[in-house]
């Protein structure tokens, strides 16, 4: 349904997106995962026809979006990262304005506004000015605007940034329903690994403008299938302990976390005894130890040497 080939965007000699190839099938929910500045927003701006690529192509059902942006605009809904609505207007007035510019009018528009407000759970607040809304409610009305004209393909760019867990959960559940119950194709960008894990059938991992890995969650985590993760919680930071662990050739990766140290080690390597021995020698107080199956976060760390939230 949608395909990008060798998509590239350069801003003043800085390559923001570098030869990105991705595709989406009808009804799929696809995640674009990457840290801030990875090039996700530029990629979706090119897909949605707002930015012209420096080179490469965006194809919608085989036709060039670059040459004819209108072929995708009618069927596309975009939820930008910013709250792209008028805060001085009410929720209803916002939807009425955007509905009209999409060509809806009369009773059809009224009906669509009511339906959309119900989907985002704001039917009781439709007459209130958006500037009186909480962050989560603004995010929901931001999504409502993109749903108004019943798009078959929706792009959501970090739709849960800066909101409380309850609103976040509401939005994630809403996206899941749109995909599963209404059959909407979803391209979801985020730097929250758990959101992408929960919502998406397939995932593209992006860093420094490039797609560095792709596949289902299982396929991606299988990159680390021969490894396991040891999470060590410490009472305080111990730089000399980190140094000693890094010198150990059996340990594949050492990273300092908020509460201690995360290690990637070969599966069944039985390194725990050795780790405790080093800790004892250096007088390190271990509070907690947990051996885990690798997550997408670990995959990203493994591929880039950085955390998603860096």
């Amino acid at each position: 349904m949608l395909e990008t080939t060798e998509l590239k965007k350069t801003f003043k000699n800085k390559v923001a997106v570098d030869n990105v190839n991705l595709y989406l099938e009808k009804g799929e929910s696809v995640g674009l995962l990457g840290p801030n500045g990875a090039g996700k927003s530029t990629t979706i701006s090119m897909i949605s026809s707002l930015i012209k690529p420096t080179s490469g192509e965006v194809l919608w059902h085989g036709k060039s979006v670059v040459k004819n942006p209108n072929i995708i605009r009618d069927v596309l809904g975009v939820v930008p990262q910013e709250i792209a609505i008028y805060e001085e207007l009410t929720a209803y007035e916002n939807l009425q304005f955007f509905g009209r510019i999409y060509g809806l009018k009369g009773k059809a528009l009224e009906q669509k506004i009511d339906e959309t407000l119900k989907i985002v759970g704001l039917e009781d607040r439709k007459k209130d000015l958006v500037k009186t809304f909480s962050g989560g409610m603004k995010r929901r009305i931001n999504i409502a605007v993109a749903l108004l004209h019943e798009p078959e393909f929706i792009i959501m760019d970090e739709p849960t940034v800066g909101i409380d867990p309850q609103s976040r959960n509401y939005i994630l559940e809403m996206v899941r329903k749109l995909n599963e119950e209404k059959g909407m194709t979803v391209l979801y960008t985020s730097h929250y690994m758990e959101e992408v894990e929960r919502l998406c059938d397939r995932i593209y991992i992006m860093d420094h403008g490039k797609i560095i890995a792709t596949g289902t969650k299982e396929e991606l985590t299988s990159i680390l299938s021969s490894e396991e993760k040891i999470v060590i919680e410490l009472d305080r930071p111990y730089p000399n302990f980190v140094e000693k662990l890094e010198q150990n050739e059996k340990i594949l990766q050492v990273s300092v976390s908020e509460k201690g140290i995360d290690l990637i080690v070969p599966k069944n390597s039985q390194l725990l005894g050795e780790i405790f021995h080093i800790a004892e020698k250096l007088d390190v107080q271990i509070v907690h130890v947990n051996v885990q199956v690798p997550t997408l976060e670990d995959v990203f760390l493994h591929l880039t040497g950085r955390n998603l939230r860096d």
Partner: protein
Amino acid sequence: MFTFIKKDILVMIRDRQELKVLLLMPFILTLILGFALSGFMGGEESSFTIDVALVMEDDPNGAIEAFEAQLDEQSIPNEMKNDILQVAHAIQPVDILEQFLNSEELSDMLHVTYKSQTEAESALNKEELAAILTVPAGYTTDFLQNVIFDQSSASELIVTTGSHSGLIGDIFEDMIDTFVRSFNFETALTKVAGDDIVNDIVTDTIGNVETVTDADPISSTTYYAIGMAVMFALFVASTMGSKSYVENYQNVFNRILLSGKSPMLYLSGKGVTTFLLVILQALILFISVSLILRAFDITDPSFWLGTLIIMGLFALSIAAVTMVIIAFTMRYNNESISNIFGLGFVAILAMVGGSFTPTANLPDFVTQIGEWTPNGIALSALLQWYQGLSLEFIAPMLGRLLIISIICIVVSYLIFPKRGAR
């Protein structure tokens, strides 16, 4: 386009702070500048009257007869005697003084009554008068002796004011002083030239009201109402530019683009909204200053005809300027363009366009620049229309507004980003 206009107007109405600045400030500034600088402007209708008494102790007719008799006794040729007598009749000081006091130009301000000295002093004490002007006995005789024969010293007119007279008494004293100086000067000229021009010169020189042009005078309140209307219209342009920047920054503009609507429709909507806001702003100002300060005669159909034609074209030019500001703002995604316009450029345009002071008081090159600013053109056109000049006379200025509008609209369409904002 109606959807865009409705949205823009709603957004503007809900921004109370901005609305206050755009709608209330022009009225407040008109009020302040109109009163504070009323003396600076010509054409004020008098807001006060000066009640004076003229005490005539002199006998001008008797003085002329006595002068004739005296002339007969002189051993000079008859032809010369006739010439001197003609001059003496022409420069009778009391007649000229009375003409001055009762002139049409001063009739609104100066109320003169003839009284005896006793009656006048009594009225002054009762604060019924601001001043007494006394023409002392022998004033005409002394004057003629002094002017014709260079004998005797001229008598002086006496102005008596009371403790209550204050500024009004001072003004009257200044008026008489100016009259006397001017009269003496012209009399000296006549004496040298031997020409009968005194009446014409004196009545033309003294007491005339200065006006902006040769047409009807304009009050300072009217002037500043127009000045503020054209200046604050420029702030509408700046505000619309800033609001477009916010729409761009928050990606609302991108959402509009994604709807498939032409970006030019968005830009045109901004232009139409600006046009409507400028008209609305001017109408609110003109009607309020008319009702409260009587700055305009809003019952006069010609007021509406001129106002709507001139303000219509002016609003079009401001809409076009707004479109240029928005085009640059969106193209470079930079608010500083509308900020620089609002914070600095508007003040310069207002100054050279004459919103703070008539351009006649400014250097020539500034006046010439002002003649090509939309606000300067509109201000001149409105002033001249309210002063009674015909539309034919104003047409070249309207043509200039149209040229500015067309150029700006074309430039804005060329600059405005066609695909996305960035």
